[in-house]
């Protein structure tokens, strides 16, 4: 893996992204607070140019269609009238009326939410509804913040689709910059959003290049798998920005952890805090599969060994105030339990075998 590249400012980094990256897609991972949103703004601003139009007036041209925390500011909720207002002077809304955005947004929205909407083009207001009254007039509702966000996201997707298709009104779009759609969306939709976005981008045959930044492991991973982009880890150190090529290393949190656990089992260097990590994974898995308790993820056997194992585990876990800084190696007996739990878990739930070495041979039951 190559050494990280260093940038003195976000502007320098944005310029680098514009000039030096020749991949069609660039995927950035960065923790919150690193400056992702500011980077997207710097990137966007760099594409602004003031030129004279045919009539000699100064006009500003742009080349980036972006989605970030500010995109949501293009919309605001009017509680008195129960409508979402659009600030239609933004170029984001160029195709609003001439391209019949409603029927473009509707199928996208239907994938995430059960609300319907209507746009009043004259007043730039959006009414949300689920039911209509006897005369067929929609009964306006207040939508949740999450629903509002997903609507804005779908709006953006519909616009991005037009840009990707090379539609006239969005001919100016040379770059798409998408900053963390997940942070504003319901976590449940992370995979759906990622895969829909990837499908949309993959269909682009034009010249649009795309930068996507996120702090969300799952989202990052899905985009990475789908788009095969250039992947980078962005971090900040001493006021400088570091860009590190992540290669194909899985960044999806629990996979990375599982890899680590697998490695320690191989090496035998199993420390007590590894039980904490394992418990963390088991809990996530249990939640994902809808079990009440993580112990449900431990394979059940017909013999009574299961009972012993569970009892032993509960004891271990309940005393588990282990420190990462003073690692204690496990007792050999506990190591054996640890191996068994991990092995059973890996056998029971299927993970990409390419990421993990052959599971250790089943030890012969005494």
């Amino acid at each position, binding site marked *: 893996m190559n050494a990280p590249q260093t940038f003195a400012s976000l502007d320098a980094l944005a310029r680098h992204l514009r000039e030096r990256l020749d991949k069609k897609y660039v995927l950035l991972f960065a923790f919150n607070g690193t400056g992702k949103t500011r980077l997207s703004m710097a990137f966007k601003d760099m594409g602004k140019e003031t030129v004279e139009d045919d009539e000699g007036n100064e006009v500003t041209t742009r080349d980036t269609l972006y989605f970030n925390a500010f995109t949501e500011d293009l919309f605001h909720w009017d509680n008195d009238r129960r409508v979402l207002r659009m600030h239609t002077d933004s170029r984001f809304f160029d195709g609003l009326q001439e391209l019949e955005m*409603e029927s473009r947004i509707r199928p996208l929205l239907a994938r995430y939410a059960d609300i319907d909407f209507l746009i009043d083009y004259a007043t730039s207001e959006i009414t949300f509804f689920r039911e209509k009254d006897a005369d067929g007039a929609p009964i306006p509702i207040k939508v949740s913040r999450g629903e509002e966000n997903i609507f804005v996201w779908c709006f953006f997707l519909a616009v991005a689709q037009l840009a990707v298709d090379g539609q006239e009104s969005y001919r100016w779009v040379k770059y798409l910059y998408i900053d963390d759609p997940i942070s504003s969306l319901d976590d449940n939709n992370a995979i759906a959003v990622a895969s829909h976005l990837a499908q949309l981008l993959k269909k682009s045959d034009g010249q649009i290049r795309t930068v996507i930044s996120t702090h969300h492991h799952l989202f990052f991973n899905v985009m990475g798998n789908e788009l095969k982009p250039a992947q980078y880890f962005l971090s900040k150190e001493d006021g400088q920005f570091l860009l590190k090529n992540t290669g194909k290393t899985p960044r999806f949190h629990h996979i990375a952890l599982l890899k680590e656990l697998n490695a320690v089992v191989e090496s035998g260097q199993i420390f007590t805090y590894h039980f904490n990590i394992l418990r963390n994974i088991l809990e996530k898995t249990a939640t994902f599969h809808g079990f009440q308790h993580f112990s449900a993820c431990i394979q059940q056997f017909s013999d009574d060994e299961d009972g012993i194992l569970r009892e032993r585990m509960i004891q271990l876990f309940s005393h588990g105030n282990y420190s990462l800084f003073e690692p204690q190696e496990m007792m050999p007996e506990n190591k054996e339990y640890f191996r068994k739990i991990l092995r059973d878990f890996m056998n029971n739930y299927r993970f990409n075998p390419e990421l993990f070495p052959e599971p250790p041979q089943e030890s012969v039951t005494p």
Partner: protein
Amino acid sequence: MTKEELSQLGKTLWAIADDLRGAMNADDFRDYMLSFLFLRYLSDNYEAAAKKELGPDYPKLQEDDRRTPLAVWYAANTEDIPDLEKQMRRKMHYVIHPDYLWSSIYERARTQDAELLQTLQRGFKYIENESFASAFQGLFSELNLHSEKLGRTPVDRNKKLCAIITKVAEGIAQFSTDSDILGDAYEYLIGQFAAGSGKKAGEFYTPQSLSTILSRIVTLDSQEPATGKKRKLSCVLDFACGSGSLLLNVRKQMGTHGIGMIYGQEKNITTYNLARMNMLLHGVKDSGFQIHHGDSLINDWDMLSEMNPAKKVKCDAIVANPPFSYRWEPNEALGEDFRFKSHGLAPKSAADFAFLLHGFHFLSDEGTMAIILPHGVLFRGGVESRIRTKLLKDGHIDTVIGLPANLFFSTGIPVCILVLKKCKKPDDVLFINASEYFEKGKRQNQLLPEHIDNIVETYQYRKEEERYARRVEMAEIEKNDYNLNISRYVSTAMSEQQIDLGAVNHKLVALEEKIVAATQKHNGFLEELGLPPLPLG
């Protein structure tokens, strides 16, 4: 059937739907409801015709006899059945076995017969395959009688069907069975379901007022609209026909025998089935229409890709309300397609012009085409501008009609009607800006009969009227780069009223004089009372 009756019937059926649909969504329930209405319609007409055919031989049953007279006759006259059926086919174009008549089905439903579901299933199959001379394959294919939505077990489903059919039968029994009533009710329900759900169904329903404008325009003489209606249309085509209401509207304008053949095409299979039922329900003979299930954009209808010019379909009237700004997948092969080759390929983001060119290709030299499209087609740039320019230069665009916003269930965008002809007499293009003439509804705007008349008559007599309609010479359109944005040609803006300053001055002077007189009078009173006067001037 009067408007009140129709609305009453509609409400009754709608209430049943609301009451019974339970877990089902409106779209699914619509399919059951409409299929039953369809069966009832066929049955009623058939029984009435059979009664007439058999005359005194038609069995008269006791009050409490719940069998159908036809079933009794079938049982007693086995040998004569083929003759009767032959005769009925000749007269009605179809046959229904007594077991599958609505009254038999209703009787099973009323008595909670355990065999109802099976019988209904066989009945629908029978109508698809054996009732009509031309088989209506798959007419009920989207109607799933075994759907979980009706109930978890077959017994539950049978029970639910019994309930629905009984309610529907009782609901419509109180209305007269004049032959149009069910057709109208059908139409009404399609409209209601479209308004009710909107998400899926709204897309295929053209508001009746728009439908009427299109129909009235295409049925007028194409060269000299002022001379009035054509006597006969050899054929009419709607290549995005939805449930067929636009085609039926054209037929209504022309009268039952005014059209040689009705052609329709529809991509959505459920809607395609609705369209076929809708035709039959409105009394169109099975030999009088052809509806094709398929995609107009790729033109998968063999009949329309006939290479032999002598056999090429040419329609006297073409109407359509295709989906607006529909995203499609143009490719190289389509670029070479005979429909698009000489005009250009509509962009991926909006198939509007692809639809238009598809239809236009099949227009006869004497024909008129009227199509509803979003306003964007009038001014969007790029390839759309090139297609528009070509159509204009070739003299194909006859009239551009701008309509108010909010006429549709599912979208608020303003739409327009383009009237196209292969050959047209006037060199100019008529612009009608009707965007400000409508009745404001709570959500949707409506066109009233006078608004419709105004539009159609303006087209018919090519009238000009300030702020409403204007004949624009090609030179002016060229000067505008072939941009057809209506407000460039017919502005609805009122010019500011001229103010006659002389008159205003006169008025002000008069007022001033009055003030002075009144103050002096008032001061007179004040003086009498020994009080200081008001200042003057």
